[in-house]
């Protein structure tokens, strides 16, 4: 480290070329053009180290965990549990009892809805969400509201796609039991004022869940500083494998919650009269889990923690600013979602060119974006749109890729003119 008398360190220039070499897929071409992968909000790519960690596990260490006395089972258990320790560190959880491996964000939210929600909600209770939630943070609450007689309350957003804290707090009533909100909107990129909202909810005794699927790749997350009760994310948006994700839960709450799924690892003892359940976190990990996925997630966290977070963040901010500036200059193009605080993604529509056609034309130029409703149909309805095009960036994206995106949008406009 530098000694304290040295001048403040200038931000390092972010070596995007070096980072790109860590991601094998970025070297390929699509339809004869270099791949410009701008669909990171749907799923991010994996660095070599993640691929190798999964490969090493599959080749040398695989066996079922938590049961065998043989060497492979112990190795697999060690690797799986060490991945959990990486997540504890990544989220700054208090203990490994608070980190539950699930299939992804969707399963994490369903777990909380069906275990905590179903066992505590009563008729007349309210679950508060916002207008810009992903379907995965709407439908599980609709289901549990139907089961319990609770009702779903939706806090509004404005024309910029911004959610104002006072609008959400204003909808907290003595009947509000759960606040479930996105940290970052997948469709618009809006960063929500989660710190403020969690504090307001906590002061009223409301349990809080944050859908962090779009936040963890872009923002540092500290669950103790946030003070939320639950935080959910998926590995595959964090440069890790699919089919694995994390539910962080405050230990005291998790202890009180009934198991959600039965069988396998969640059992302590079974008799036909009565079974007893395993301790945390295993109480919520029924069945043989996704070991290779968890190990891949651990490797993804290791990779991310090896990057300079300040430089990564600065690069992503610069990508967002560049994309916003360049896209705004395209005639007939409208950016949807103009929140002051946004993650590095841009949702947009082009008059006269349907998003789906745009997606095909960009694909022919090697550019991958997402087109459609982004599993956030209420957001699309709010803006009177069936679909938008969404370019979502990761730290391995470049200014040149954004320029190619813009050139391709011009080409699409010319075709449909």
């Amino acid at each position: 480290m530098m000694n304290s008398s040295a001048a403040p360190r200038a931000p390092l220039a972010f070596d995007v070329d070096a980072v790109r070499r860590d991601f094998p897929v970025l070297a390929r071409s699509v339809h004869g053009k270099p791949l410009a992968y701008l669909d990171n909000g749907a799923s991010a790519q994996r660095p070599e180290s993640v691929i190798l960690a999964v490969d090493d596990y599959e080749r040398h260490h695989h066996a079922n965990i938590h049961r065998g006395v043989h060497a492979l089972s112990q190795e697999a258990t060690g690797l799986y549990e060490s991945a959990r320790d990486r997540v504890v560190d990544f989220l700054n959880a208090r203990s490994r009892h608070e980190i539950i491996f699930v299939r992804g964000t969707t399963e994490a939210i369903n777990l909380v809805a069906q275990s905590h929600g179903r066992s505590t909600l009563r008729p007349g209770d309210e679950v508060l969400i916002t207008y810009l939630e992903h379907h995965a943070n709407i439908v599980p609450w609709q289901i549990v509201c139907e089961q319990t007689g609770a009702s779903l309350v939706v806090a509004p957003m404005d024309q910029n796609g911004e959610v104002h804290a006072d609008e959400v707090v204003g909808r907290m009533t003595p009947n509000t039991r759960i606040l479930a909100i996105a940290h970052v909107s997948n469709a618009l990129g809006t960063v929500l004022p989660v710190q403020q909202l969690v504090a307001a909810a906590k002061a009223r005794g409301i349990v809080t869940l944050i859908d962090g699927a779009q936040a963890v790749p872009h923002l540092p997350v500290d669950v103790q500083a946030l003070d939320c009760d639950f935080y959910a994310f998926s590995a595959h948006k964090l440069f890790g494998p699919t089919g694995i994700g994390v539910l962080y839960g405050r230990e005291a709450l998790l202890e009180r919650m009934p198991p959600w799924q039965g069988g396998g690892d969640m059992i302590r003892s079974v008799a036909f009269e009565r079974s007893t359940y395993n301790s945390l976190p295993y109480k919520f990990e029924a069945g043989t889990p996704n070991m290779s996925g968890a190990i891949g997630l651990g490797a993804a966290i290791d990779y991310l923690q090896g990057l300079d977070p300040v430089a990564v963040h600065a690069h992503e901010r610069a990508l967002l600013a560049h994309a916003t500036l360049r896209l705004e200059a395209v005639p007939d193009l409208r950016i949807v979602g103009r929140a002051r605080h946004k993650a590095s993604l841009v949702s947009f529509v082009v008059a006269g060119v349907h998003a789906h056609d745009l997606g095909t034309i960009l694909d022919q130029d090697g550019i991958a974006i997402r087109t459609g409703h982004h599993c956030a149909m209420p957001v699309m309805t709010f803006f009177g749109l069936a679909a938008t095009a969404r370019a979502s960036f990761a730290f391995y994206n470049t200014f040149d890729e954004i320029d190619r995106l813009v050139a391709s949008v011009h080409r699409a406009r010319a075709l449909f003119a």
Partner: protein
Amino acid sequence: MHLTDLYRDVILDHNRRPRNFGPLDAATATIEGFNPLCGDRLTLRLRLDGQQIGEIRFEGEGCAISTASASLMTEAVKGKSRDEALALFERVHRLLTDDAAPVDEDLGKLAALSGVREFPARVKCASLCWHTLASALHSPEPAALPAVSTE
């Protein structure tokens, strides 16, 4: 494959100026088509005169492929009998999905849709209106049909 195979002039023209677009007052059947993948929605209205499609119009929001396909379809089936229209549906379905089959040039303007089969992600855009029509024509009571989905 090239973009111009997909977006041929006929397709671009029918997207810009869709034929038979708008409401139909004396409809005997109204059927909704929905593509959950992209959110495209289509409302197809027909007036059946006995076994004959006397009038057919559509409305909705969709991509160029789905708009042009619906426009071309309404032109092609207006005045045709139920059986003739269903036979045409089969031929277009083959055109859109069967890579191995030679392009059925007898389809006239509809043959412009053949480029779609090189773009598998877009086949449903072109076929949505046709499935919606077939559903209406197969039903003895088309007025009471549920929405048709591509999924």
